[in-house]
């Protein structure tokens, strides 16, 4: 035993020296690398920046099918056949801005807002990496379109949302206006592209998008101009693949007989399905043409096995044939929609002759009788909406159509939401919002 003072003991002095040496030696010891992700600086690279732009558009595609899925459940197209209470709530049109849970209704808006953010951040990065040539790069046009189309998509399903990153809530009508502004700027860039193929692709895509945005913003003449500028046969799809989760389509996953069967044709229309079904295999049937209840409309195919119920085991299940698997692509923009937009613009001018001239080619192509020129505004509206229902069946338009034409109560009954409410996640995390925020949706 020793009685030397504590700090003069060799071990203690040794400890102090050892500790100091160890701490000094630690520099670099704690460096580890995450091999599965990029750091911020890694992306400021001319090769990688293309993938950043594609990532932003990929997010938009992933968001759009979620929007289609949820807004179709709110509309009269589909009904929840799941056992999920929050899907039931959407399907029943019972949603509040202060919903007790985050709920599935929040996801599409969250995703669309994230794709908008990714596009805006990508635009900044493209400007940084490409410098002066950024504004003539198709990548810049691509992300500017994603930015605008995200706004447009939010406005189609949600009654409110933030117009800017972390900004206050604004009504969906403002989203359409903002989309028009952004698309106009993007179109200017697209027209400046030097590569002809890029130019054609993006000018058509942006023009078609602006046609829709102008229509929903009430700029019918501008919508008509844009719609007429889009060539026949134009299609811009959201692209999906079966391989991994972030490439798969939610509509294909939830609404088809091969998959979850969590949503199917709304019971309201079960008696309008034409077809014969058996208990052994799935057979395709069609909803009747809105104009002739004896004629199947091939644009609205459903599949059914006689006696089969949805996974909720409550009522008959009619699957949606349009999205047969998780790799089924989804229409974002088509020239067929442009015809509908032009038709509506003509209808707003009471020019029913030109209206049916825009509606009938698609009917004739599908073996349906041509629509005679309506003689009343009500008939014109019925024709327009009947065609929009058929052409854009389960493509995410119906909710807004019922809302725009104030038809929710008459079609689906009173006491229902007309649009989806502001995302709960945005309310809770936005610096410009607070709990309890949200004044819509409008209840019919």
């Amino acid at each position, binding site marked *: 035993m020793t009685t030397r003072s504590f700090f003069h003991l060799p071990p203690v002095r040794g400890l102090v020296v050892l500790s100091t040496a160890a701490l000094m030696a630690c520099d670099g010891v704690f460096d580890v690398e995450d091999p599965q992700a990029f*750091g911020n600086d890694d992306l400021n690279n001319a090769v990688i920046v293309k993938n950043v732009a594609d990532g932003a558009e990929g997010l938009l595609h992933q968001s759009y099918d979620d929007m289609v899925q949820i807004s179709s459940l709110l509309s009269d197209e589909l009904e929840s056949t799941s056992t999920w209470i929050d899907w039931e709530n959407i399907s029943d049109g019972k949603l509040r801005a*202060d919903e007790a849970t985050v709920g599935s209704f929040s996801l599409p808006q969250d*995703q669309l807002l994230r794709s908008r953010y990714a596009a805006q*951040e990508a635009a900044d990065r493209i400007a940084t990496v490409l410098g002066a040539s950024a504004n003539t790069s198709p990548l810049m046009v691509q992300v500017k379109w994603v930015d605008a189309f995200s706004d447009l998509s939010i406005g189609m399903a949600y009654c409110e949302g933030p117009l800017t*990153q972390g900004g206050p809530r604004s009504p969906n009508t403002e989203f359409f206006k903002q989309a028009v502004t952004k698309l106009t700027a993007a179109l200017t860039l697209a027209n400046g592209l030097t590569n002809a193929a890029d130019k054609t692709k993006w000018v058509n895509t942006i023009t078609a998008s602006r046609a829709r945005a102008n229509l929903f913003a009430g700029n019918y003449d501008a919508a008509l101009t844009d719609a007429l500028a889009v060539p026949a046969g134009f299609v811009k799809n959201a692209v999906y693949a079966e391989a991994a989760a972030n*490439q798969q389509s939610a509509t294909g996953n939830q609404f088809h007989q091969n998959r979850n069967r969590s949503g199917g044709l709304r019971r309201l229309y079960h008696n309008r399905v034409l077809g014969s079904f058996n208990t052994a295999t799935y057979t395709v049937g069609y909803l009747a043409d809105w104009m002739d209840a004896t004629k199947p409309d091939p644009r609205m195919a459903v599949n059914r096995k006689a006696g089969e119920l949805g996974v909720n085991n409550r009522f008959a299940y009619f699957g949606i044939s349009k999205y047969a698997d998780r790799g089924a692509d989804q229409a974002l923009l088509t020239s067929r929609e442009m015809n509908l937009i032009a038709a509506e613009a003509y209808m707003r001018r009471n020019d029913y002759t030109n209206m049916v001239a825009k509606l009938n080619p698609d009917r004739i192509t599908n073996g349906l009788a041509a629509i005679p020129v309506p003689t009343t505004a009500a008939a014109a509206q019925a024709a327009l909406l009947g065609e929009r229902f058929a052409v854009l069946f389960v493509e995410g338009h119906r909710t807004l159509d019922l809302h725009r034409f104030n038809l929710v109560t008459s079609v689906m009954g009173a006491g229902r939401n007309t649009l989806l409410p502001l995302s709960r996640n945005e309310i809770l995390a936005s610096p410009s919002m607070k709990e309890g925020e949200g004044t819509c949706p409008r209840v019919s």
Partner: protein
Amino acid sequence: MSTTRSPGRWYWSLSALVAIAAAPLQAQTGAVSGTVTDKTTGLPIVTARVQVVGSQNAAANTDDRGRYFIRGVSAGAQSLRVTRIGFRPEAQSATIAANDTVTVNFTLSTSAVELQQVVVTGTGGAVEKRKVGASIGSLDVAAQQDIMPVTNFTQVLASKVAGVRSLGVGGGVGGSQDLRIRGIASFSLNQRPVIYIDGVRVDSRASEWTTATGMAATACCSFSGGTSTDRLSDLNPNDIERVEILKGASAATLYGSEASNGVIQIFTKKGRGEGRTQWNLGLGTGYQRLKENLPTKTFPRFTGPDGTRARDANTLIENGPWNSVDLSGQGGTQRSQYFISALGSKEVGSIQPNDQTKGSLRANITFVPTDKWTVEVRSNYARNVINELQAGNNWTALLGNAMNGNPRNATALKPFGEAWVPVSDIQNMETKSDADRWTGGVTLSYAFNSNFTHRLGFGTDAVNEQKSRFFPYAGQFGPAGVTFGQRNLGLRNFRSTTVDYLSTLNFKLPFGIESNLSFGGQGFWESQRLNIAVGNTFPGPGVSTVAAGAVTSGGEAFTETINLGLLAQDRFSWNDRLFLTVGLRMDGNSAFGDDYGFQKYPNAQLSYDLSKHTGLFPEAVSAFRLRGSWGKTGKMPGPFDSFTSYSAQPVFEDVPGIVPLNPGNKSLRPEVTSEREVGFEIGLWNDRVGIEASQYFAETKDAIVNKAFAPSQGFNQAQRVNIGALQNRGWEATVNYSVISKAAFDWTTGIKADGNKNKVTSLGGVTLAGNAVRVGYPAQGVWGQKPNGFSVVQGGTSCGGLAGVGSFGCPTTTRTAAQEYFGPPLPTFNGSWSNTIRYKSLSLYGLLSMERGAWFGNGDRPYRIRQGGSDEYLGALGPNGERTFKSDSIFQWSSILSHVDKRDNVRLREISLTWQVPEKYSSFFKTGKTSVSFSGQNLQWWDDCNCVDPNMNWAGGDSFTINSGFLAQPSPRQYRLQVRTKF
């Protein structure tokens, strides 16, 4: 019979080597031998540790006849001390003559007080419990295993140590259970305590990993539904000698940035010391069987559309056999000791297919080349193959499909009216976990002298786990996303390497104060690589590889963490009665943000052994100790949480894309828990009664909050920010009482109880989505909408989703708009009562446990009703299956409300009857001490949970699903017969 046997050629070779190394030091020594017996019963005491005081290597354990032999004891006056858990230590003096053997016999009194028990975990070296100011739990697992064979380590701890909870069953055999110590110390990080085996930090993963590879959607929640396999089940419980548990931050400070959830150190058995090899053979058999309380007993009343009469899910319950054989040997010399063991066992689940086959080989060898050096080498290899049960929140949950269906949809293919996938197809699936694991290490100890020692430890735990799942071509797996078969293959490589150095120095200070200084460092490097491959859509039956799928894909993930810490601690003793300990640990960690440096964790402990004051207490008080402690410890963030990162992921159709992922945080640091604890131990009537009580208050600051960015602000993941705080306040009490102790009869009883209240005190101004974490309420608290009105609606066309309204109208319950608080997810009170009664050679042991105060989201109950199944709903239908006011009421209620129920229960957890075979019989078979025990576990429970098992938790060992039970597997009743014999 005690006869000398030839230990074999290798033994002599080993001894010769050791002898050569030690030769210069062997001079003027003698030997000591004797027996250690129970003072009251006269029975031999097994595995008592006899040690020559002042010589760490001159020691031996007693054999099954209580005998010991120590060679190489320095000649002259020596003091010998014998210790054994459950007995009062004794010391005797003896004079050792050179080249002679002295006999020293000990008789020990039983003790219900553990103050003189030596502990080593988190204490800076071996020390008696009475000198430590914090509560350290300990458990003599070897003794437990003799009377109650268990196959999983988490079962070993269940209800045995106050404050430690084993909870959350979810899968079948091999499925994980969660472990919690003193409540919830984090609301965003894993809450399982860190586990060490003989000083080596080991893999204790109990949650699913197949979803961490970017392939989540291919496997729903996991290959088997979320329960996953429990890596603690790799352990051979028969290898464990004892377990030490650091419950709180004040005790675990020296473990630094990973100890907020507590530390469990497992000590495996060592060689016995001088004497012949003692072999220990265990043979076990038995079976398990689920309680037949599945809510489908009414199903056979109904027939489906094709006339099939529905089957009751209880008919799936079978006896799952268990068979086990283990063999171990302990022996050695004074300079070399060894423990070797082997295990082979197979356990089959009550719902099949589900079984676990495992084997392990262990060798623990201790060399003492000189009186100053000790070298310990440990090596354990384990193979654990589990055919996992499809359970949990999973389209192919076997019981889930059988229990959640609608009997009126029963068909020949789906006789249970299965909700999604036919049970017969699920039974044709193959879900396997196959793990190879090696855990080993080397510890070098050097004693400069008895007051200045060094210990350097190095060890590695290496786990290679392969998980696979196979959907055959022909099954109807549509809801699971599989149409023509699928094969999933996952590989997990886990490595954890631990290095630690500790030096202790004893010296005297003025005023009769002694100092015990410990200092050193500890570091670990942990890496994990996950790979998964998926092959989807086979061209036809007969193939089962990933490559045979028409669509193949893969995923990969890698993480690593490096932690280095320095520690120093000094324990000051005054007159062997007052002990003050102060310590500090400093940690650097790769998971801390770039802008954050080292984290410091201080602690201070005070212990006052008042029983050293003679005459202070009445004679009945044989021991009294007061203690208090305060300390800090931490919990490191996830490996890459601090990094700002962008995810590379395919978009469109296999086009590379990059999207914002994690906003990162350069200032990210560990969560820091500070805890203060006070307590006391009292021994009464010569320690026949032992009472221990503790009260603690722990506060976690810098708790990591997943501060979500608004979706409009981009990043998909929330930012991890150290802005939260939460508290745990609780108490623990243990009473052990040796009621009767006679030669032919003894009875000991013990009560353990603890209470815990957990509260989130700050989220840094952030409101998190959902209600699981809210300020003022327990973390993972249970919330739900409550009914707030009832009326009978006469009009309308539907009734809670059912077509039409009956003549009685539509009973309509309404609900609150907001979710309301029900209660905490963990019990606020846990209690257990154990009794061991011995009459001659028969011992009866029983353990009863109680849990109160916990709630859970009972997702199964409304789900089944909404499906049109469940005895609760079907039993309310009319005699011909027609809807009634009551059944419509139940249905409508369940269509708008998620049910919340209490987990309160009383459980007959363990019971066993053990017969110590009299020597006249065992000697007939040429064996030594032999016992036969018949035991049962989980035999009965009483609850009010509207569920099949109140401890069900759909993801087993996942820390964040403890507040819900959905499609989980109940725990089975287990019946076991075990024969243990020594020879």
